[in-house]
């Protein structure tokens, strides 16, 4: 911990690594007085001007608002409200260009000013000691105060730290060239600034207060010293002018000799740093009940005839402001200092709480970096870096997008001060590279997170699917068992039963559906085109054919089932016959498909036509044959039986041309349909009226299709895995 008492007496200052000495160019603008505020015809107040969320809008288009009136309400922790900077009418609420390097649009209120500048009702506090700490904090919160030095962190939050604070460091360094807003504020309004510091100190339980000001501001130093002459706990320290002494971490090092831990915040050391502008805003909010609606802005640069500091209403469009000051050439405008500022993408963007400087440079004032050369490893950047990084190495790794090396070289400790790029003789835009590299690493971290989450989701899903699959398998198994049982039971127990048992019927249907699904899956595998009987290439419609066949088979089975069950009175065997037939068909189909690409060795024996060698063709032919043996197909069926006819009563399973055989068998069975007997289980009992496709068959078909689809999906999931 820091020996804070010593800080009040000792003259010791520490130095930080690196740092540069850019030309300050502040002389023209630091003269008093600060110019009074100008009321533009309209203001554009973004609802978010700090780090954190915006408050909730509490006005609407058409409302008349008074100066200082709350426009948004801070409903949650990091929210900071905004106020009407002057009186007028809310003309629009919508997206307008932001004052941000990205130039993206943001939500803002456009207020048409009435020029009257009428204040809303105010309740200034004369004696702050009458306020409780909590009231004071609420007051600061509702005054919309966020850090005015740069980042714009909500002040109220920084005044309620978790750790006890032993040192309140007031940053009046203002080390960036050109900017003199804090300088003139301290010169002109030191009393008020100190009053604000006192309030802050009170809220932090009266720590030691050090006000650090760079040596190039003798008038500000004198004014501040005078203002806090009769206050014990405070001391104004003059620090050497060096960039970036005003960086929070560097300032802490200069004053205390301690470094803020890499992933920590100053409060970890018992230090909190506030900007002088913020202190002034606090005093103003408490003693005048004036929320943060205006700030001091340095308007400077070679194009500006009279560089000066101005009070500017927050929300004043920058182009209007500069036109008002007689400037017409507004490209480029730099917001902030030349070291860390950014080029304003849209001149119509407004001045916001963190806008401390506008630079309108002449052509040769800030040369554009167009002569970039290779890095010569001169090491100047490493000597200049206040964070003690190796910018030249970061440069290499940023170009190579080597994230590991970038992290190893502590890229995220870079404060983007620009000292390295300032000294780089090869004019390499180092800071830009670091920003991009940081963005790259951040987004890849995001992606990693996302991928991690997706993976978890995926695994959970797989597990679920697996469970479902098992459940289904279980169900099927049960169904099959039930069916087997039924099959075993039926012949003995209900031989005389004339009407089919519904349970058995169901299991038979399930088996048939299974067979169909298998068939479909098989049929969906290979083949593109096939040769028809006439030797022509036709689109492969084996899928369709298979489907059709399945449908027909289904219908036939149904019909046969009905017929035989009603006719012979032994429904059970018939049903099981139908099931067996369906399974056989499916098997045959699968085999036929599997062998469809192989040359058929058996073909020469039987084939008279060369195209018959093709199994696919055979299938087509068979299908056609089934379609009541048309003329052209008859040729094939004639050729086929030479081989297959003798085996027509045997299991069709093993023959490569099994399907053909099965078809032929069916065709024959058709003829024998009337005399179907129970003794032979192999022939398919089919109906004579083949085209009879009843509704039930179609429904069964649809169910089968759906099942097949699901099975297919499951298969796909498996393969994805």
């Amino acid at each position: 911990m820091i020996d804070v008492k010593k800080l009040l007496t000792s003259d010791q200052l520490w130095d930080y690594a690196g740092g540069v000495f850019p030309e300050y160019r502040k002389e023209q603008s630091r003269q008093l007085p600060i110019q009074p505020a100008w009321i533009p015809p309209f203001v554009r107040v973004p609802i978010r001007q700090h780090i954190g969320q915006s408050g909730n809008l509490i006005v609407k288009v058409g409302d008349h608002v008074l100066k200082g009136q709350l426009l948004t309400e801070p409903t949650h922790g990091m929210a900071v409200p905004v106020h009407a900077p002057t009186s007028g009418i809310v003309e629009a609420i919508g997206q307008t260009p932001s004052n941000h390097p990205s130039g993206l649009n943001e939500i803002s209120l456009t207020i048409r000013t009435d020029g009257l500048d009428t204040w809303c009702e105010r309740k200034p506090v004369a004696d702050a000691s009458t306020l409780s700490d909590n009231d004071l904090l609420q007051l600061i919160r509702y005054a919309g105060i966020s850090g005015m030095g740069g980042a714009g962190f909500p002040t109220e939050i920084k005044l309620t730290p978790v750790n006890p604070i032993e040192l309140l460091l007031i940053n009046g360094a203002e080390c960036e060239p050109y900017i003199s807003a804090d300088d003139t504020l301290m010169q002109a309004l030191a009393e008020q600034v100190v009053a604000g510091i006192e309030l802050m100190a009170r809220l932090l339980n009266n720590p030691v207060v050090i006000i650090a000001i760079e040596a190039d501001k003798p008038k500000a130093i004198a004014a501040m010293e005078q203002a806090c002459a009769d206050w014990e706990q405070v001391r104004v320290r003059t620090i050497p002018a060096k960039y970036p002494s005003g960086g929070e971490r560097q300032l802490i090092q200069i004053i205390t000799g301690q470094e803020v831990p890499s992933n920590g915040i100053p409060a970890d050391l018992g230090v909190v740093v506030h900007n002088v502008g913020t202190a002034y805003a606090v005093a103003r909010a408490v003693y005048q009940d004036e929320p943060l609606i205006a700030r001091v802005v340095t308007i400077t640069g070679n194009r500006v005839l009279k560089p000066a500091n101005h009070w500017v209403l927050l929300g004043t469009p920058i182009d209007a402001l500069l036109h008002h000051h007689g400037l017409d050439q507004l490209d480029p405008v730099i917001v902030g200092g030349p070291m860390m500022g950014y080029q304003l993408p849209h001149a119509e963007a407004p001045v916001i709480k963190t806008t401390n400087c506008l630079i309108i440079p002449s052509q040769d004032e800030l040369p554009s970096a167009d002569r970039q050369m290779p890095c010569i490893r001169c090491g100047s950047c490493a000597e200049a870096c206040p964070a003690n990084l190796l910018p030249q190495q970061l440069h290499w790794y940023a170009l190579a997008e080597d994230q590991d090396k970038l992290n190893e070289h502590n890229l995220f400790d870079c404060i983007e001060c620009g000292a390295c790029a300032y000294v780089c003789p090869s004019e390499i835009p180092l800071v830009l590279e670091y920003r991009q590299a940081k963005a790259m690493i951040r987004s890849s971290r995001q992606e990693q997170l996302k991928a991690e989450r997706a993976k978890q989701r995926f695994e959970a899903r797989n597990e679920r699917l697996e469970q479902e699959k098992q459940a289904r398998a279980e169900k099927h198994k049960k169904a099959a068992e039930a069916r087997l049982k039924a099959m075993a039971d039926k012949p003995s127990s209900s031989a005389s039963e004339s009407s089919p048992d519904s349970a058995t019927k169901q299991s038979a249907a399930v088996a048939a559906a299974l067979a169909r699904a298998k068939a479909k899956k098989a049929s969906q595998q290979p083949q593109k085109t096939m040769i028809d009987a006439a030797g022509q290439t036709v689109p492969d419609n084996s899928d369709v054919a298979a489907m059709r066949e399945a449908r027909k088979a289904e219908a036939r089975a149904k019909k046969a089932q009905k017929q035989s069950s009603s006719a012979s009175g032994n429904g059970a065997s018939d049903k099981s016959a139908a099931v067996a037939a369906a399974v056989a068909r499916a098997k045959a189909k699968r085999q036929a498909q599997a062998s469809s690409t192989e040359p058929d060795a058996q073909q020469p024996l039987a084939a008279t036509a060369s195209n018959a060698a093709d199994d696919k063709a055979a299938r087509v032919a068979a299908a056609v044959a089934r379609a009541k043996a048309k003329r052209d197909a008859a040729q094939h069926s004639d050729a086929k039986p030479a081989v297959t006819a003798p085996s027509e009563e045997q299991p069709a399973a093993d023959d490569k041309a099994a399907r053909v055989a099965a078809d032929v068998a069916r065709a024959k069975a058709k003829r024998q349909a009337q005399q179907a007997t129970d003794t032979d289980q192999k022939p398919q009992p089919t109906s004579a009226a083949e085209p009879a496709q009843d509704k039930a068959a179609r429904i069964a078909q649809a169910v089968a299709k759906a099942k097949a689809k699901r099975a297919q999906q499951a298969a796909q999931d498996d393969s994805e895995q």
Partner: protein
Amino acid sequence: MNLLSSPFTRQSLKTHELMRMVILCCIPGILVQAYFFGYGNLIQIALAAATCWGTEAIIMIMRNRPALRITGDHSALLTGVLLGIAVPPFLPWWMTVIAAVFAIGVVKHLYGGLGNNLFNPAMAGYVLLLISFPVAMTSWQPVAALSQHPVGVWDSLQLVFTGFSADGFSLQQVRMTIDGIAAATPLDTVKTDLHQGLTLDESMLKPVFGSFAGAGWEWINLAFLLGGLYLIYRRVTSWAIPGGMLISLFVCSAIGFAFSPDGTASPLLHLFSGATMLGAFFIATDPVSACTTVRGRWIFGALIGLLVYVIRTWGGYPDGVAFAVLLANMCVVLIDHYSKPRTYGHKEAR
């Protein structure tokens, strides 16, 4: 107008200006060298610089790069100048050309051009010659005042391009001192003499020595020191490398001298003879092939100083700057890795 990104202001010295400044700061040393050794070195410098520049331009054209813009960075010119200063004044022209082409074409551009070369190009070219033509590369003529046959501009040109002066003297004859013995550099002389058992004092009585180091050489070194100091003053280069090298050379030689005052060369002799100052301020400081961390540079410089001393004292060559620099170049990655500074807010360097 696009200003790209912050910072929008930059310090004035650009890379090509840095290079130019280094070249300009060589001039005092070059002039003093010319005063003592005649026009030979000027010819060599012009030859080497022109060859380097031309080689770079041709390579740039071959690589489809804007030749004028890139050669405008003066880095090739600087390589040529340093090479020209380092080689003996009457080295046959084609040797210089070989060294220059090698330095730029192989050592610099085969590694990717400016900023990517591992070795100091000028020294790599120099060492190539030193290994290939050791005799020619160690043949310095005596300083003008001691020379039997002083040579003029025309003689010098003839010597460089034909091997004979306008009067028909060969290089060997030109190298004769008034005493009729072939001249050796002071460092060479000391080395040989000490080897032969003479004491340092006895050796130092020879005419090749001046008031405190080698005759002529002491002034050349002083002139380079002057130019180097100006570079540091202008912040073109920093103290680290030259400081490290000179301190380490001084310390090493002082220790050696303390142990054996008669048997080794004195620190003063080391510091102001041969290529010490040229090496410290102009050669070892080549940023591309040196360390980039501040601590690393001190180490880098110190390593060179140590190696120079070792080579001069025990090595086979009279001077060791070129070898020392190249050897140190090889250690750069290692030194850089272990001399990483501790980042702000971190407990240890990582």
